[in-house]
Each structure stands twice: as C-alpha cells, then as structure tokens.
C-alpha cells in the first residue's frame, strides 16, 4: 500500500508525534505493515523538482495513491481562493491539490484535529477560513463536502488529536493496509473507534480524587482537574490514560487539564482552557452519559464522604498521607 503525505495549514506536530513512535524505527514499522511512503515532506529524499513532478502525477492519475494523508487545516481564505497556502514552487493553492488527489486516492486520512475539523488554525477569528477535510467544526462539510466517500465507500478517516498519538496513526494505516478498516470501525465523527471509544477519564491516575470530588485548586496539585482547572477528560474520546504518551505520560499525568483535543471545536471551548465554567457551582460540561441530577447528588454525597488522606493530598504536589496499612493476620 503506498502512501502520500501532504502538510497543509498546521504546525507539523502530527509528524513529529508520529516520529516519536516507541516501537523501534517507525520506518521499519511501516515496512513491516507493507506501507510504502511515496513522499513525506519531512523525511523523504526527493525535493523540489522531483517532489513537484510526483505530486502532479498523483493529481492526474499517472501515479495511483492508495492512501492520502493530510496533516494541517485546509485554508480556504482569502475569499475562497486558498491563497493563504500555496504548495511551494507553483501558483496552485494547496486546497486544489488536495481536492484533486483526494478524488483519486483509494483512502483519505485526516491526520490530526486540524485536517479533521479545522483545529487550532480555525480558532479565534479564523483568519484563514480554515476547515477540515470533511468537517468544519462539528458540521459535516469541510473542504471535500459531507457526501465525500472514497473508492471503497469510506468517509474521510479522522485520526483526530492535537497531535494524535503515534500509535493512532500507525494502527489506522496498518488496518487500511490489511483491508481491516470498515465503516463500522469508525465512530459518528469518522474517528477510528479503537481509540475513540474510550474516554480520557478511563485510567486517569486522578480517578480516586474524582470519585470524592477532591479537586486540585492550582497547577501542580494532585487532585482531580475537573472542578476548577478545566479538565474535559470525562467527555474527550481518546485512550490517553491507557495508551501512554512518550513512555509514561499523558496530559493528566503531566499535571494539566485535558483540553479535549480529539473533539471537533476543541479550539473554542467558550471559556478559558484551564478553568472550569460553572453555573451555581456546578461544572457546565458534565461527564458523558451522566444525568445532571445524579451528578449533583453524587458529588454532594462523595464530598461529604472524602477521606482525609484524599482531601489533603488533593491540594498538595506530593503525597502527604499514604494509604493506611492494615494488618489482617495477628
């Protein structure tokens, strides 16, 4: 299976995340899965004239593309011309190249939240009219339109994340290479379900603090970050606390909130990222699938039942009280 990777209006961080794959050399991993890089701007040998010639051949069909990976938002501005991003060496805007090659490619994969939904590049006043390949925020559409399907009937596959975990990318590509990715393996937003059917909250080391609503009040506290510091882990679809980052990391293990970077529209949460918006003391963003009345009742109950150990540790940057040791045999 051959793969063409193009970078559009993003930061290149998806590629850098991918290169950090922790399973030996990424290049060997790809080879082992039967994936051949036609071209990738950061790692391939071919530059300038050779690269342009190849892209032209991919666009007019002389070179068949099995998988087109796009990293970075699609910039439609100014005034729909796409002029904020040209592919170097010629006049044609990037969005035109993407449209042409996507119409011929066997599969189209959005790498990262920028090419999935618009992402950070679409934040604020969205100066460049940035969008994703098949979504503009939560709305189906984007550059290729809501009805886009690849030659196998799949929509754009959204390996969301800012950036995505290296394994999300490689495993998605491996599933495609082995013909094992079908429509039922994608969630409602086109994300591969192997990582999107989890919540960041699952496996978070702060779960005990969450249970008792023993909350961190400032950065570097050990408590749960949901009540005050903006954590969206109970609503974010990703397995970040189960499949760890860079060996043994995750946002929560790093001491800061999950900003829901795999979700469409995460770039504009409607409140400061690192603080939790509340109405009458209750966080607005309730955990997924949790009825509000129950949340309030349980929160009140669990707060009153918080063990001293949990309450004190929540407001400290290191363990003040260890779990007590009980002897069961005399």
């Amino acid at each position, binding site marked *: 299976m051959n793969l063409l990777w193009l970078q559009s209006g*993003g*930061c290149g*961080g998806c590629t850098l995340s991918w290169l950090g*794959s922790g399973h030996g050399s990424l290049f060997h991993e790809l080879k082992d899965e039967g994936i051949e890089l036609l071209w990738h701007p950061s790692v391939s040998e071919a530059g300038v004239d050779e690269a342009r010639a190849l892209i032209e051949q991919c666009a007019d069909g002389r070179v068949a593309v099995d998988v087109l990976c796009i990293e970075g938002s699609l910039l439609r501005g100014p005034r729909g011309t796409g002029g904020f991003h040209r592919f170097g060496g010629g006049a044609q805007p990037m969005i035109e190249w993407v449209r042409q090659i996507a119409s011929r490619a066997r599969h189209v994969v959005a790498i990262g939240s920028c090419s999935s939904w618009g992402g950070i590049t679409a934040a604020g006043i969205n100066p460049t009219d940035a969008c994703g390949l098949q979504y503009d925020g939560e709305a189906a559409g984007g550059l290729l339109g809501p009805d886009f399907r690849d030659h196998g009937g799949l929509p754009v596959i959204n390996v969301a994340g800012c950036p995505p975990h290296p394994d999300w990318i490689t495993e998605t590509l491996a599933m495609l290479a082995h013909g094992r990715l079908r429509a039922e393996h994608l969630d409602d937003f086109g994300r591969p379900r192997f990582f999107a059917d989890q919540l960041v909250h699952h496996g978070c080391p702060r779960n005990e603090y969450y249970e008792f609503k023993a909350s961190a009040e400032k950065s*570097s506290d050990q408590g749960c970050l949901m009540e005050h510091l903006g954590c969206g882990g109970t609503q974010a679809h990703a397995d970040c606390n189960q499949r760890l980052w860079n060996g*043994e990391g995750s946002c929560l293990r790093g001491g800061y909130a999950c900003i829901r970077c795999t979700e469409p529209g995460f770039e504009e949460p409607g409140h400061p990222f690192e603080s939790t918006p509340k109405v009458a003391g209750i966080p607005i963003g309730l955990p997924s699938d949790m009825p509000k009345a129950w949340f309030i009742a349980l929160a009140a109950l669990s707060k009153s039942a918080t063990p001293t150990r949990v309450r004190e540790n929540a407001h400290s940057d290191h363990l003040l009280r260890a779990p007590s040791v009980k002897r069961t045999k005399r």
Partner: protein
Amino acid sequence: MSTRRVVGPFNRVEGDLEITLEIERGRIAAAYVNSPLYRGFEQILQGKVPADALVLVPRICGICSVAQSAASALALADAAGIAPPPNGRLAANLTLAAENMADHLTHFYLFFMPDFAHADYATRPWHATIAERFRATTGSAPNQILPARARFMQMMGLLAGKWPHTLAVQPGGSTRPLQSSEIFRLHRTLREFRQFLETVTFGARLEDVAAITSRAQLEAYRTGAGGGDLRTFLAIADDIDLWHLGRGTDRFMSYGCYQEEDRRLFPAGLWHGAAEAFDVAAIQEDISHAWYAAAGLPQHPAAGSTLPVEEKDGAYSWCKAPRLAGQVVETGALARQVVAGHPLARDMIGGCGGSVAARVVARLLELSLVLPAMERWLNQLAPGEPWCISAQPADETSGVGLVEAARGSLGHWITVRRGRIHNYQIIAPTTWNFSPRDAQGQPGALEQALAGLPASDTETLPAAIHHVVRSFDPCMVCTVH
C-alpha cells in the same frame, strides 16, 4: 540577462519553503525567500485571556513547541511580575533542553545528512558508504536514530506529560512535580542518550568534544580513532569544502537561555567580529516586502501589527523582516555559541565566517555542552519543595519572553488590556534567518548566503543550495506563524 527560477517545495525542512532565484551567467544574482503558508496566530490570539496563549502558541510549531511554550510562559510571568521557584526553573530548563537536543539530532540525521546520499555525489569516493548510512528512511542512520530519539523523548513523558504540545510549562513553574524515583528514571534516560551519542555520533566522550577549542583540534579529532558520524561529516566537509559555503551576515545574535541560579548557561549578546552592545529595544520588524498592511515605519514588536493583505507592490513573503538596529543578524546554535564565547565556535567563524560546516558542527557541539548541564539540573531538583506558584496577571499589563529555541532566538511580546490579549507579537528564529528584504533593500541572512552560488535555470538544483538552506535548520511554520 537574468532568468528567474522558482524553487519549491523544499523538503526536510519544517514547514513550507519556496525560493525564487535570479540567475545570471550561471550564478545566483539574487535570492528571494518565501514561506507560502500564512495561518495568523497573532490574529487568533487577540481577545483571548492571557493564559490561553499557553494552549495556542505551542501549536505554532510541532518541532519547537516547548520553545514557544517557554517564551509564552516567560512573557506571562513578566506581565505578572513573578518568577518560578527553583524546581520550576530547573524543570523548564530540562524540558526546553530535551526538545532542543532532540531537534539537533533530528536535524543532523533526518534533515541534513541525507543530501549527501544523493546521486549528485556518485563520483565521490565516500558516496557508497554515506548512502548506505544516511539515505532518507532506508539508511542505517535514520533507522538507528528514531528509536534512540523516541527513548530520549521519554523524558518528555515524565517532565511534560507529552510532546509535542504540553501545558506543563507555566509562568509560575511546572505542573509536574517529580519524586525521587522519577528523577532516577530521568537520569537513566539521560545516561542512555549520553552513551548513544558517545558511541554513535561522536566516537568520543561528550566532555572531550566540548573541550575542542579550535579548527586545528577539530581536525586532530577527525583523524583520531573512534569512528562516529561527526567524524564522517567532517571528512565530507573537508572534501567538498563546506567551510567556504553559505556565508551570511556574520552578525550573530543570541537572547541567551537556560536560567541558572545567578546566570544563564548561554548568555545573551551580539557578535560582529567582536562583542557589540545588544539591546532588544532596538529590534524592529519591517514589512515593506511582506504581505501585510503597512503601519508606516518599522515597529518594535511590542507595537507591531499583523494584518494580511492579498496584493502589495514589491511584497514576496508572508515573513516579516526583523532587524536589530537596522541590521540583518543570524541566529541559531552557531550564533549562540559564538556569543557565549565557545572557543571552537569563535575559531570556526574566524577565517571564513559563518558556513554550512560551522553551523552543523555548532549544533552537535551543543549536544556535548547541554547534556552534562541537564545531568546537573536533575541533581539540583528538590522533591517536596514547590514546583509552581500561581499568578493572577493584572488587567492592564505587558510582558516579553525571550528564549533560545534549537534554531535560535525566539521572542514573544504580549500586551493585555481589560484582562484580554490586546496584542501578541512573535519573532521566531527563522523569521530572522529567512527574512525578506527590508525598506533599505537589505536581503535577509539566507538570501545573502545564497547569493553568488552556481545555479542554472534548466538543470536540477545543485546540492550546495540544499546544504546552505538546511544548514540554518529552518522552521517555516514558526517563521510566519
């Protein structure tokens, strides 16, 4: 009669790069550098609460995301009038150093060296060996480097939660308190990386590389035993004379970085044949040749604006042209070490000025200088002591954050009005190095370094041009942002 040739996309650089060459009698008469991508971060940041900058600015750049975080955290700390506790300062140094060192490694092995595997060099006696080792994606080096780099970046998992794009680097310190057992793990990872560099990259102890003080000693090292990819590079550099290729302005600038208790590991300064007075107040951004609405004269970044326009006479880049007291400067590892007074760095530019070889050697030299400092910082961490203090920025305030990214000097200037970001201006290292012309017609550093090189408008682009461009380790996503 001159002909024009538009060259792009340059690959194995971070982001989008295109260069227009004016070719006359087989040489480059003039070069015009452009990044054909504009995203508008300075516009996106306006109106946000100041702390949101910590989420947004790392996403300017996937390769120097921590440097962007660090500059932003410093600017916010400056605006709030606070400084992190010692643990916070040390953690910030370690996080930035881990990114910078990984970048130097990535640049050498993945971006720069593969050019020597190109068929252009098929007649050189070293070509077959070099191609086997450094060929992009299939060579033995890239496949050896990726796992070592990933292993080293596990430091980021512990120090910063994840890389790229962390929120651990805060104005008041680090969100990630480390316990003693975790500090041991970080030591272990550093030791592994040291061993990797000493066997694979240098064939020598880091301390011995750091102690090289002159070109003559570098030559003695090269001919010595021990192997290592730096020796290989030095042999190529002598064979095809990379010491006289890619001379720029020879005016070297560094903001200084890695704050220690009473000094910075690498100090700030300006060097032009000798140390010169360095004043950040003398920085101005010229937009005469960039696609932005003119605000009259060049502005200091604290007063700068970013308003993109579709058409503008004479403009050819999305990159502004920063100048220091009206002068073009070069920034990067070479500049940093020249300013810091490393004898080898000074000696390398003594005869032939800034060059492709000197820039590459300076980067690897930094690996040998910074890794021992990282070991020292780890030893200074004090579990149980504070890691982060809280800060409430004033509603009307301003601040500046200056750091050194792998590629050179990075500055953030923030102005806060009524508790919201009123203006946020960024000048990245490659904005300096790859700037377009200014109102006086002075070409940017790369534009100067390319002028005079052989080129033709019909044949494939000479390898020398690739070497010069990549010797700056450009990051185009940062450049324009």
